[in-house]
């Protein structure tokens, strides 16, 4: 008997009842979010010490390069950016920037578009795809994220969970941190040390 058959033979039982599985999800306990002030709630969670992200607001995509230049200058970084091949980003005027579309091992800054922002936790939801590589967002020191205000949602259940799924969904709720040496918190353990969110109003 194969290992599979042997294990499954010992686990034989009734098939799960979908209604029973669904009933386990009715009115889940979760932090309350006021939908009337979604953006403010999201920004408040972003600023919590556990998430520790900064933010900026732009009125349109045309303002994005200026906002990023402002951020990088404030951080003492050169205008060098890893830019994914997303037409919404490549269409911007990046004059003055040095761009590349794959990240170097010591990449300073990367820009990515989040599919959702979640007010409950201050999380940013990403999906992989041909125009959305994953690795740069874990390599760069500065993780810069563009998020449309209309994509802010109250709870984690509002992440795009239905329909065809990407190879990877990843939820970012802060920077790469560790408390592994004597409990002391250090930012930038492996990946980003800084998270900067740019909200797009339009």
């Amino acid at each position, binding site marked *: 008997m194969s290992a599979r058959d042997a294990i499954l033979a010992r686990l034989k039982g009734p098939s799960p009842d979908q209604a029973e599985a669904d009933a386990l999800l009715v009115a889940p306990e979760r932090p309350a979010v006021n939908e009337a002030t979604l953006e403010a709630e999201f920004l408040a969670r972003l600023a919590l010490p556990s998430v520790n992200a900064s933010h900026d607001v732009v009125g349109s995509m045309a303002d994005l390069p200026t906002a990023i230049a402002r951020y990088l200058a404030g951080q003492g970084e050169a205008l060098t950016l890893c830019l994914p091949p997303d037409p919404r980003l490549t269409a911007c005027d990046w004059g003055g920037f040095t761009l590349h579309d794959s990240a170097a091992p010591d990449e300073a800054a990367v820009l990515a578009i989040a599919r959702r922002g979640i007010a409950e936790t201050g999380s940013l939801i990403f999906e992989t795809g041909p125009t959305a590589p994953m690795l740069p967002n874990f390599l760069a020191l500065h993780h810069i994220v563009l998020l449309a205000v209309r994509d802010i949602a109250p709870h984690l259940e509002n992440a795009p969970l239905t329909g065809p*799924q990407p190879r990877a969904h990843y939820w970012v709720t802060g920077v790469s941190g560790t408390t592994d040496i004597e409990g002391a918190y250090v930012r930038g353990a492996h990946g980003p040390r800084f998270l900067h969110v740019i909200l797009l109003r339009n």
Partner: protein
Amino acid sequence: MSGFTDRAEAALADPILKIAVERTAGTAEAKRGIAIDAFPDFEAARSRAAAIKDHVIAHLGAYLEQFEANAIAAGAKVHWARTADEACAIVIAICKAEGAKSVARSKSMLGEEIGLPHALAEAGIGRVETDLAEHIIQLADERPSHIIWPAMHKTRDQVSALFKAKHRSPHQEETIAAMAESARRELRTQMLNADVGMSGANFLIADSGAVCTVTNEGNAELSLVPPRVHIVTAGIEKIVPSMPHAIHMLRMLARSATGAALTQYTTFYTGPKRAGDRDGPDAMHIVLVDNGRTKMREEGLAEMLRCIRCGACMNHCVVFRQIGGHAYGGTYPGPMGAVLTPVLDGLAPNRDLIHACTLNGKCQEVCPVRIPLPTLLKGWRDKSWREGLEPTSMRAGLGLWAWIATRPSLYRPVTTIAMRVMRLLGKKGWIASLPLAGGWTRHRDMPRPAAQTFMTQYKKARRP
């Protein structure tokens, strides 16, 4: 003396260990408390989490088949292993077939449980642990002492010395930030150049075939995206029906483990790289591991399969906080370890481990999936008694006590005499050394008994 008793003795005599354990567990306890107070109805949420896990365990076979079908549809290969050895053999065979020379591993307790580090070493495959604590443990050639903070027993000076001895370009400044930076430099190239990335799974999503990992360091993603192969080893109990079920469990896991609302990086991997994707592995293998779990389900330990490995039970355990994790001797320390280790390593060699518990119930109170840990431990104690594993002296002593205790006319004078003798041994309310019971008083004092027995006081109080 047995292994556990020796290890506990050594741990109790180590003042640095006590400070280290207290610092980490105490901080975790405080942070969890704040997070739970801020959460609406955590008690109801615990009941829901337990119900989700019970539902899955009742239908485990069907959910595993559903997961398998969806993972295969997404392009992953699914393997099944009855035992730790089978699981390791599958992993090694995949590595060999891929011609893999190096593996980047993201912390997985299941990997420790099945002895994967050892199996890789035997096969001559290089392994780099990428979680900072696991990296420290690997350099020190030690075992994890906690399931969330595996290097909690190491001081900064010890870590500094290790990094200076083993890193190619170690830190110059004696700060924790500089040490972390040294590990970042050391590990980054190794992660980017590994042939295989290995992880466990915090959750397996039945209706999509996705594998979920959570980390605060982002080391899972850096270990699993660049290599050409991703191998997951996961316990079969890690299944949840769907993403919304996983979301509930994630809320419970993060708050119970570190007091956070969510871990910094939560990733769901569904199969290997797709057409057009710019990164990700070419192949994804998922090894579903039983290793005693079906037996637990059949033999009265099904509730233990609810465990989501949050570590709250050990952070709140008075015994763990005295002796740390290594004294437990198995892969899993603390109360959950005391229940699991006899399953994994046998009851006879762990007979004294199941007694290392005051049954104060704190672990059960904080467990996010309401596992009745003290009841399960008592079940092991019963089994140990029934199977004749308790030492003759213990059986004789208890037999004598039972004989006297069922004869009140004898019990009362005997306890009165014992109390008087004990009062003579005590000073200022405490007994520092008790003949024939040195084990009790070696590391702590015993309270001096009251002047009169309960029955004497009771009779006096009833007298008009």
